[in-house]
């Protein structure tokens, strides 16, 4: 059907209007004045999508207490391949809740409901036919407090691969244990005492043991929930160095209260506030020149 001239003009005018709607960056350029997105505005600012994502979350809501409390609200966010994405925000903002959705850790909490879509390589991980055991091997997790099994260092690593059927015999297991400990940067420190309990290691070593244990089952994604908050600065630096190494092979999503840590290890940063994803963008931009007032308030330590 042909459009009339009037319709065409109207359509053109609408297209022009759309073009004129400037992004915050453009507003800054045009006026010379920085205009942060107002505190009241809760729609996500920044580009949440990436090309060819490893994981893709769309309109995710999470409720606790059988729907009584909404913990996160309509979050859409892609997680790219071989990237480190950092989630920051004040306590109770939903960043850990969101992280735990990514390997269905929230399933273990009674009364927790997850709505929306979370897919990994195109497959919805909340589909009924998804088995969470292999899912959690594929999407491994490292917690705030190192939690080695009360077993030997060797067994801590070997246990996962054995139950997932990744190793057939002692030789294969030995090799995998050595390999995992090497990749976690712990091998040289423990190779002569593999039969000793994992709980006897220092905090930083225990955390690397947990990372080695996660790596051993051949994951694609590693979730880290404040992995360094119980560690001293040296152990923290070693873990951060390890994260730099690991991102060559894995995708890493890290929740951290340390903005310096987020700025050092990640390529993208997401800022959460009271259950909303407020801003997502390249880490450099978030920490030098954020677009949302709430992000700015938080990272500069101001009263909102």
């Amino acid at each position: 059907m042909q459009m009339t001239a009037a319709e065409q003009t109207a359509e053109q005018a609408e297209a022009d209007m759309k073009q004129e709607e400037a992004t915050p960056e453009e507003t800054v350029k045009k006026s010379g004045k920085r205009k942060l997105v107002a505190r009241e505005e809760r729609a996500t600012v920044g580009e949440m999508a990436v090309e060819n994502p490893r994981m893709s979350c769309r309109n995710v809501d999470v409720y606790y207490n059988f729907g009584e409390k909404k913990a996160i609200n309509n979050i859409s966010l892609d997680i790219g391949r071989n990237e480190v994405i950092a989630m920051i925000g004040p306590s109770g903002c939903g960043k850990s809740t969101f992280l735990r959705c990514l390997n269905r850790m929230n399933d273990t909490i009674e009364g927790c409901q997850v709505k929306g879509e979370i897919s990994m390589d195109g497959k919805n991980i909340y589909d009924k036919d998804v088995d969470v055991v292999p899912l959690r091997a594929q999407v491994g997790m490292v917690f705030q407090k190192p939690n080695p099994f009360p077993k030997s260092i060797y067994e801590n690593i070997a246990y996962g691969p054995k139950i997932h059927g990744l190793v057939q015999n002692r030789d294969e297991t030995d090799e995998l244990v050595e390999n995992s400990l090497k990749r976690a940067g712990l091998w040289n420190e423990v190779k002569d005492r593999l039969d000793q309990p994992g709980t006897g290691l220092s905090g930083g070593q225990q955390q690397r043991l947990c990372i080695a244990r996660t790596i051993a089952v051949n994951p694609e994604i590693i979730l880290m929930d404040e992995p360094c908050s119980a560690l001293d600065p040296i152990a923290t630096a070693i873990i951060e160095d390890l994260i730099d190494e690991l991102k060559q092979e894995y995708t890493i999503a890290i929740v951290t209260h340390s903005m310096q840590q987020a700025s050092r290890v990640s390529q993208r940063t997401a800022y959460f506030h009271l259950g909303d994803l407020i801003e997502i963008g390249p880490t450099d931009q978030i920490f030098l020149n954020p677009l949302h007032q709430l992000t700015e308030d938080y990272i500069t330590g101001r009263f909102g």
Partner: protein
Amino acid sequence: MEAHIVKSYDDEINQLNTQISAMGASCEWQLAKALKALENMDVRLAEEVIKEDVNLNALYKELEENAVMLLAKRTPLAADLRYILAAMRTGSELERIGDYAANIARRVTELGGCELTLEAPIALIQEIGVLARRMITDVVDAFLKQNVESALEIWHRDDVIDRKFARLMTDLRASMNEDTSVVDCGTLLIFMGRCLERIGDHITNIAEGIYYIETGETYIGTLET
């Protein structure tokens, strides 16, 4: 801008502002007195200006130390980080402006005897000087108030200084061709004009810093990009 949760952080930032303000006042004083010394061929006043520059350099050192301490202690981010970087830069620009004012004063002590034949160029130098003085006051004020519009307006005033300096060069060249006996004095006046022209450039750098705090970007002379 809202207050920081940690009050001493704001106190430290205010301290930087106070130091910038003091440096601005010292710079403006130096340039005013250097121009006065030129006007009255007052060698003693010129020497006072040269002495004041030592004071300005000390203020700058203090500012820089405080800024470095802030970076180390507070690990500032976003607007705070941009502010502290711009404050350091502003301090260093003001310090350079003081050097130029002192250089003008030094030339006054070397001048002498030819002010009558070169009355017109000297008047033009005074004109440029008045513009530069006002720009110093205004740009420091814009920095303290974080007034980006005012900063950009000041940035563009530098064009006037550049044009007047170009005229000064043409005039002095003509005078020196006409009467070779004024070459020595003429050269000193070119040097003074050049100092004022450089002062204008340093002021534009400060204005760019104010723009950077606000936008996180470098101002390139136009907003239509």
